[in-house]
């Protein structure tokens, strides 16, 4: 049965929340720290501030291009979009960050944020002072490895769609990756909400907005997905993975 307009959205992608002493279950660092025998109270003792920020509202900027870089932040809830504005004044979407993912990693080399980050819905963040975290990492191999892994993933994400792929391949890869990323945070891999606007998806995939809709309609009539307003249900995972294979290569 198709969903009516305005049916209750899929559960909000909010990870179960941590507190002063406990890591959030989605925290990008919890496993690294716990594996190294550090719990949150120890981090605090080491003056690594783990600061839960006040919520950012839809459309609110978290940082802007050129701002001084001092912290990376893990998304606890909501979706963050990063983008730059090109010389023609056009927005170029660089990526989307879901709960458990870390923003600001691409600022490490220049001590300034090289892009803008904006909340696409209500966003909660967990900020880590980067200089302190870097210092801590020199004493904590697990944390260092985790940082390297995050940096590597960030680079991989940026280059993933750089190839000469068809619109279908890009769209399928986008959906499969979202699904895997949600799954990695313990959220449903088959039913999730596209929190980004159609034009953002199009911009990110280097497609026209009309093409995004046309391909989704085709996926829908082919039985791969069901789209109801912003809700996506993956109904034939195998075939969607297949369509994405050329991009994802695994």
């Amino acid at each position: 049965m198709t969903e009516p307009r305005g049916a209750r959205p899929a559960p909000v992608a909010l990870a179960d929340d941590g507190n002063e002493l406990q890591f959030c279950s989605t925290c990008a660092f919890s496993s690294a720290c716990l594996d190294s025998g550090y719990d949150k109270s120890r981090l605090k003792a080491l003056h690594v501030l783990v600061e839960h920020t006040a919520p950012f509202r839809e459309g609110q900027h978290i940082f802007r291009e050129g701002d001084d870089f001092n912290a990376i932040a893990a998304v606890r809830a909501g979706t963050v979009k990063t983008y730059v504005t090109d010389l023609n004044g056009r927005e170029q979407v660089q990526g989307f960050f879901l709960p458990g993912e870390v923003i600001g990693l691409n600022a490490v080399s220049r001590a300034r944020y090289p892009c803008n980050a904006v909340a696409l819905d209500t966003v909660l963040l967990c900020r880590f002072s980067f200089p302190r975290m870097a210092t801590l990492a020199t004493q904590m191999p697990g944390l260092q490895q985790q940082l390297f892994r995050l940096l590597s993933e960030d680079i991989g994400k940026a280059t993933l769609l750089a190839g000469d792929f068809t619109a279908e391949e890009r769209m399928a890869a986008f959906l499969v990756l979202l699904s895997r990323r949600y799954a990695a945070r313990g959220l449903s891999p088959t039913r999730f909400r596209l929190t980004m606007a159609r034009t953002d998806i199009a911009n990110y995939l280097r497609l026209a907005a009309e093409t995004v809709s046309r391909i989704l309609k085709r996926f829908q009539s082919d039985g791969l997905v069901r789209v109801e307003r912003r809700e996506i249900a993956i109904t034939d995972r195998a075939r969607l993975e297949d369509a994405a294979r050329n991009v994802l290569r695994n």
Partner: protein
Amino acid sequence: MNETTTIDSEILRRYDRPGPRYTSYPTAPQFHAAFGEMQLRQFIARGNAEPIPRPISIYVHVPFCFSPCFYCGCNRVITRDATKGERYLEHLLLEIERIAPLFARDRDVMQVHLGGGTPNFLAPPQLGRLLDSLGRHFHFSTARDRDFSIELDPRCIEDGDIDALAELGFNRASLGVQDFNPDVQDAVNRVQSVEQTMAVIDACRGAGFRSVNVDLIYGLPRQTQDGFRQTLDTVIAARPDRLAIYGYAHLPELFKAQRQIKVAELPDAEGRLGLLRLAVERLTAAGYQYIGMDHFALPEDDLAGAQAAGGLHRNFMGYTTHADCDLVGLGVSAISHVGDSFSQNPRDLAGWEIALESDRLPVWRGLELDFDDVLRADIIQQLMCQGDIGVAAIERRYGIDFRHYFAAAWPALEQLAGEGLLTLAQERIAATSRGRYLLRIIAMCFDRYLQKPQTADSTARYSRAI
């Protein structure tokens, strides 16, 4: 289904009380002025941002009529002055130019409906300019099931008009008839010959229109069983694809024209019931299917097919096969339904014109549906279109316990069940064949706004159930 056994006078008499027609939920009286132009713009933008934005359905209201039919409760202006039509058209074009660019350009228009008033108060060349503008500023679908429909007053159709309309792309027509009996026509100030009407139906068929609808009204002054039977037989002989049989709602406090109608000439409750029963019997015997809420269709018509397939939808234009479009209402008093919002243009010509002349979208009032509104609207829509409510599906979709959520409605539902109007089961609440003629009574159980203490005029605002 044998409909003839299902009109139960005792029950019908008991439930012959005022109630909304549920062309929308929440109904228009709930709209408020805090919802304005800015909110409408936001809802349009939100719709554009969806991965697959909804297609568009356009309603254009043409308020003018040459003469007043006394039964009418529509928003209309009586005039013979054609310059008023021209001025109105100019403003409509302004409204189109202003609102169309707000919609993403790949949102196809699946349906255009012209209602009134009398849309054919505007001459075919004027309607041509209207459609041309719509086509330039929106994008018309090229799909085969695209509907361009127009309400026609057969009394002001001239030779060649219908062909001209077909040329413009119109493919469905709805004709006002009400009753052919001369006494009734005289009492309601609408004299319209059978020949005139048949000529228009024939012209529509000749021009290749996909369907012709005829509107009749029961409960009019001086209406008798014999007279109405003749009207029914005449209409049925012409075999319109769709028929609407509305109950006349006598609300003279609200509609000035109705004060011309003599209460003494109106049929009583028993008489109204007899007329309705007669219509149902005649139409079902002639092979028409009851769609719900006053509407009948031949089995081969798209509406009947859509109902069987669960794809029927109801909006301000009545029943339609185009579910899940954003509805854009243009013209004075027109209502839009964009995303989870309703919004309405000013009901007075001057207010609508001034807004357009001052570069605004003419939004007078509206409403943003909350979770509860969306849920109840879904239930009422299912009732109106399919005659039942998929309880289990609703529970899954909205994450509620139906029985618990609607605990307040339960006694009323149980009473209706006890009277044989509906069946209450775990999975499904269904109107019985008897209850299908009282859908609005069942729907009222789910109307949160009716459960609030009623104000003095809220009972007078709605027409009677039968």
